[in-house]
């Protein structure tokens, strides 16, 4: 009798590595945005809702215009719009960031469910696969080539975005201002730079990136929208942003590490090894916590994170 268990052949390994990348990119995009927002002092608990909104809007736009790029643009715009609401309420009106974030999440869940039911509830349309962009020569390398260098263009752009955010935070005055808004907003204000404008910028970046991450989830990773499909991705992205402590490279490592853990869980099941899936998913975070404990027990989060800025108020 032939039992279960597959061998890790080239097609299986290719699918698993490619799957790890696809699973990691939504986290990467959302966590990058959240990191910028946190650097500026605003904790965005509504990230999951912004992703969900981006997922629905991106899916709808792709379906309507037949172009994933239209979908990504719509997803980013939807995230930006949610970010603008958050900026108005949390930065403009200094409302509690946690309460507003939760409210935005609930609003997004309800709105996308209702809209999905109204528009697609009877048909559940699905999208065509987004074609990959083959990088000449290296795309032919077994497993790694097909899995890493034949991905849709948006995957490469997402990784390039991480480099751009790193450059922004480290090498520009805007990056310095973002960090000051999160650490010492009073000092930034005294230097003549608007704390409100700086924080609004951070929140808008978070919304846009979260929308893009959600759009990637529905357009590329799933090819379909279903209610609540983010399934906690936004909250994992918040954890990644916090653990990364302002370093985009750590965001990339953690997001892709999480994707690898997911694929590892699938691989072990396919070869017939029984393992608790949630334990594997926790591995990247455990590794980072150990690394932080061993090598970086300094100050982890911006000093003014979550604290509203009121000009002239004593802290």
């Amino acid at each position, binding site marked *: 009798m032939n039992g*279960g268990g*597959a061998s890790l052949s080239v097609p299986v390994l290719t699918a698993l590595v490619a799957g790890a990348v696809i*699973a990691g990119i939504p986290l990467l995009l959302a966590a990058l945005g959240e990191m910028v927002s946190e650097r500026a002092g605003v904790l965005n608990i509504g990230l999951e809702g912004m992703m969900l909104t981006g997922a629905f809007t991106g899916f709808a736009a792709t379906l309507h215009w037949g172009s994933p790029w239209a979908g990504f643009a719509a997803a980013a715009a939807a995230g930006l719009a949610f970010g603008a609401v958050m900026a108005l309420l949390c930065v403009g009106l200094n409302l509690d960031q946690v309460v507003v974030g939760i409210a935005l999440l609930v609003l997004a869940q309800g709105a996308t469910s209702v809209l999905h039911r109204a528009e697609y509830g009877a048909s*559940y349309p699905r999208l065509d696969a987004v074609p990959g962009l083959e990088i000449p020569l290296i795309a032919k390398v077994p497993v790694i080539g097909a899995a890493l260098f034949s991905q849709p263009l948006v995957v490469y752009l997402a990784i390039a975005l991480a480099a751009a955010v790193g450059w922004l935070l480290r090498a520009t005055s805007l990056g310095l201002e973002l960090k000051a808004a999160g650490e010492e907003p009073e000092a930034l204000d005294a230097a003549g730079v608007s704390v409100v404008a700086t924080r609004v910028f951070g929140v808008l970046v978070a919304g846009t990136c979260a929308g893009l991450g959600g759009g990637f989830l529905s357009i590329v990773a*799933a090819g*379909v929208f279903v*209610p609540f499909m983010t399934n906690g991705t936004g909250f994992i992205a918040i954890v990644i942003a916090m653990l990364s402590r302002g370093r985009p490279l750590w965001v990339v490592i953690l997001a892709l590490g999480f994707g690898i853990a997911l694929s590892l869980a699938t*691989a072990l099941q*396919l070869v017939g090894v029984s393992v608790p899936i949630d334990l594997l998913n926790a591995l990247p975070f455990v590794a980072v916590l150990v690394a932080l404990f061993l090598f970086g027990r300094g100050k982890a989060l911006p000093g003014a994170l979550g604290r509203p800025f009121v000009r002239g108020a004593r802290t």
Partner: protein
Amino acid sequence: MVRERMVRVRARGMAVAPLAAAVALLALALALAGASGCGGDSLPDTTTSSVAGRSISRIGIVAPEEANDFGWNQEGADAARRLADSLGVEIEVADGAGYDDPGPVLRQLADDGSDLLIAWASGYNVVARQTAGELDVPVIVIGAFEEGLAPGLSQDLETRAQEGAYLAGFLAARMTKTGTLGIVMSADDENWVKMAGGFVAGARAAEPATKLLLAQVGQAGYADAAGGKRVTEGVIAAGADIVFGMGDGSSFGMIQAVETATPPAGADKLWFIDVIGDKTSLDKKGVYLTSVWWDYQPLFERAAKALEEGTFGTQVYYLDLAGDGLKLLQTPHVPEDLWKEIEDVKADIIDGTVEVPVTESKTEVEALIGG
């Protein structure tokens, strides 16, 4: 079973020890006094079996998610609608109620005039039974087994879904070109595990050399469409040309994978086997081979009849092949001669010639696969 055992113990005690019987009666009296002091918070008494019959004028159903999921929630709501049509009564569907306390929704349904309530989530059953007792409105619950029975008040429904999955496995093993079948579960779910075991047994009964691959998306990945697609792509890459997918929202990602992935060596086409609902209307690319369809209308009708006859809530009802609630969906993709063979296997299950194993955990399914 529990109730029967309690009755037997009590009867034997009275026969051999009058003193013990007196003590037991005293304890019973004290227990009853205590229960009456607890007011409406206690669960309904399940030891009474004779109740007056009731008529139904309006049905109310509360479901945790939107009733347009082509799955659990939609099947419940649609079956309740068909019951209402057959009885000629009104129906109110309260879907998207979430998984928290269904009490307020059930009260609202009762206030609106529903005199038969359906609490459509296993997590609802404790609160639903309490609410039914307080309002004196009968309720249908699921997943509570004997605890969900209260004569005249609470009727429990269960499934023997493994029987339908056995037929699906039999069909898949006959149709596979690669000799490898995939099973993808979105979550650690009792029904998913039962059906996975039935599928394995059916496949092995049809073709003992069938290779089976089992993969789970997450601990509770019911809505994880991206995860469903990713895991299904891995299963296909490992050689499966037919995927048995159990997922709720996640199943749309599984279908997407079957529609877009390249078939493995030896196959020129991929197939998907669904559960609970019927998604044939969504099948634009001809990959939907069949579904283990859960049609609750026969059980709802049985419960409604029992309510009128005064036997509601006296025994658990099972969704199974014999009761015609569990079906393998016939699609044009299944050859006629194979369908006849499936019908024969179905008859063998119903008459007990074929016994379908019941697996209660993923580990048990893995053991079954390992042979």
